[in-house]
């Protein structure tokens, strides 16, 4: 909101300096913790596996931790990809149904889906723990993915409904006239039009599932089936009460890196997803 003092006159620079310092400091506050953790994870530090010189000792500790980092990475990847696939499938079909069809119970179902937002995580996870035990999904990564998908539905179904509604109806009517069934219309004609919405929904589902902590904490007991965030959090308290800060830093890097890369790659979609109106009051 500072008036742009254009030109490179000395006075212009002098006026702008406080602004540069101020905004630069803000950027630094947000970036410093991330940069510091990245650097610290490979720098020498007493009490870690990287005492002398720079290197990847902390990552080696992590690789050998209990079932091995590979196992936890695989668990997390499985849950995340299954959640993304389920969320995309359910919300694509659901969004289509809510945007383009009239059927009895439509408003009730839509409201029920949105109501998921109003219910605390913990309130649902305790009975879900009991229910999943009952149907043989105790201690199962599939169970975690199902639960995570359910928690993603309010946002995803709403987002896809809005995406479909912003596509002109003439498009499907033309396809129908050409003899397409409702499904071919969806697959051939509408899918390309709602792709930005799907990228946003998929990105959010991935980030949520990859980072989720409470659902696996409650639903998984078996230490070889836990996901990465849980493994890294457990890591701290394992070594006879002494916290291995180096390995924790390395763990945070491994957790954060895919998210940050994905975010930077898809930032436009992420922002556009919001701008497209899902959140407009």
């Amino acid at each position, binding site marked *: 909101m500072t008036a742009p003092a254009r030109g490179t006159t000395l006075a212009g620079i002098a006026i702008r300096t406080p602004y540069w310092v101020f*905004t630069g400091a*803000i*950027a630094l506050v*947000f970036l410093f*913790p*991330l940069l*510091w*953790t990245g650097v*610290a994870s490979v720098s020498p*530090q007493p*009490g870690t596996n990287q005492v002398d010189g720079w290197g990847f000792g902390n990552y080696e500790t992590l690789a050998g931790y209990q079932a091995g980092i590979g196992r936890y990475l695989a668990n997390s990847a499985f849950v995340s990809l299954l959640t993304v696939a389920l969320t995309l499938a359910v919300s694509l079909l*659901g969004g289509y*149904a809510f945007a*383009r*069809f*009239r*059927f*009895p119970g439509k408003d009730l*179902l839509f409201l029920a889906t*949105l109501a*998921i*937002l*109003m*219910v*605390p*995580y*913990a*309130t*649902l996870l*305790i*009975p879900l723990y009991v229910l999943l035990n009952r149907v043989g999904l105790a201690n199962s990564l599939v169970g975690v993915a199902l639960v995570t998908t*359910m928690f993603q*539905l309010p946002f995803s179904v709403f987002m896809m409904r809005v995406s479909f509604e912003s596509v002109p109806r003439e498009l499907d*009517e033309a396809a129908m006239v050409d003899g397409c069934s*409702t499904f071919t219309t969806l697959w051939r004609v509408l899918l390309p039009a709602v792709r930005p919405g799907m990228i946003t929904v998929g990105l959010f589902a991935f*980030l949520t599932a990859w*980072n*989720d*902590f*409470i659902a696996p904490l409650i639903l998984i007991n078996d230490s070889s089936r836990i996901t990465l*965030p849980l493994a890294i*959090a457990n890591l*701290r308290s394992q070594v006879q009460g002494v*916290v291995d*800060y180096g390995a*924790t*830093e390395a763990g*945070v890097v491994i*957790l*954060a890196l895919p*998210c*940050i890369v994905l*975010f*930077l790659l898809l*930032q436009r979609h992420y922002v556009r997803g*919001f*701008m497209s109106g899902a*959140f*407009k*009051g």
Partner: protein
Amino acid sequence: MSLDVPTRPPSTPPAPPAAPRRRGRRALSGWLYATPTAVFVVALFVAPLGLVLVMSAARWPLLSGFRGWNFPDNYAKAVDNRFFLDSVVFTVKYTVLATVLLIGLGLGLALLVQESTRWKGLLRTSILVPSALGLASASLLFYVLYSPLAGPLSPLMAELGATFLGTPNAALWSTLFLIVWRYAGFYMLLMLVGLQGIPVEVYEAARMDGASRWQLFRHVTLPLLRPTLALTTVLCVTGSLLAFEQFYILTKGGPDNSTISVVQLVYSVAFQGQNDLGVAAALSVLVLGALVLVNVLQLRAFRRPEEGT
């Protein structure tokens, strides 16, 4: 993300006039496409919601399941828990502080980076990057950052004799800093969306009338941003009341059990020690009730002035 905020509901365009039979078939396909959603909502949301009510009125140890009705014992035990009152007070205090900070800073940052210049784009990205991290990862990151042994500020801490997590107040503010770091970008983004929705003409008209910058903000931006402010406040209050990871990982409820949030209490009653799912369910139902109440009150508060006009 709550959508009960004063918003125009996504309207269904009127269906083209069609023969009743065709309409019936379309309704059937509609249901078919909605079935996966319905299955998820019923099996994983409505059913557990019913079960939690049942559990809250029954003896239900973690390992053995249903052991007969005992309403209202679980509720009495939940309220009598020695951490109940403290955790409620703490959670409310945390929620108020977090909401004021995040809404204020979110709006401030949005105003700061609103125009699209290259530098502001960069600034926007740096503020947004932490929101890609999970709350658990962010909490672990700050756990190391705040550590008196390994943190970058440890020499300074040693000199001052202060710690980030040593006293109840320090732990609360350190957690708030973590939350602001993680979520400020998200709220900034929501505010930017809201600001974008305000037509430029309104500002121009006000400026023509000689409004100062402060007057513009106070009498144009704020009123027109009301729906966004309502949405963000509801989101932030709901999220903060349900805080868990930041306290479970960063402060572990300490020091001296001063930072136990309500959800953390539910978790510890259910899975750490007492293993009493009945009492945990009763606590969860209380949390749910409180949350619904708080949200209804908030929506009323945000709606009223609009109905007056």
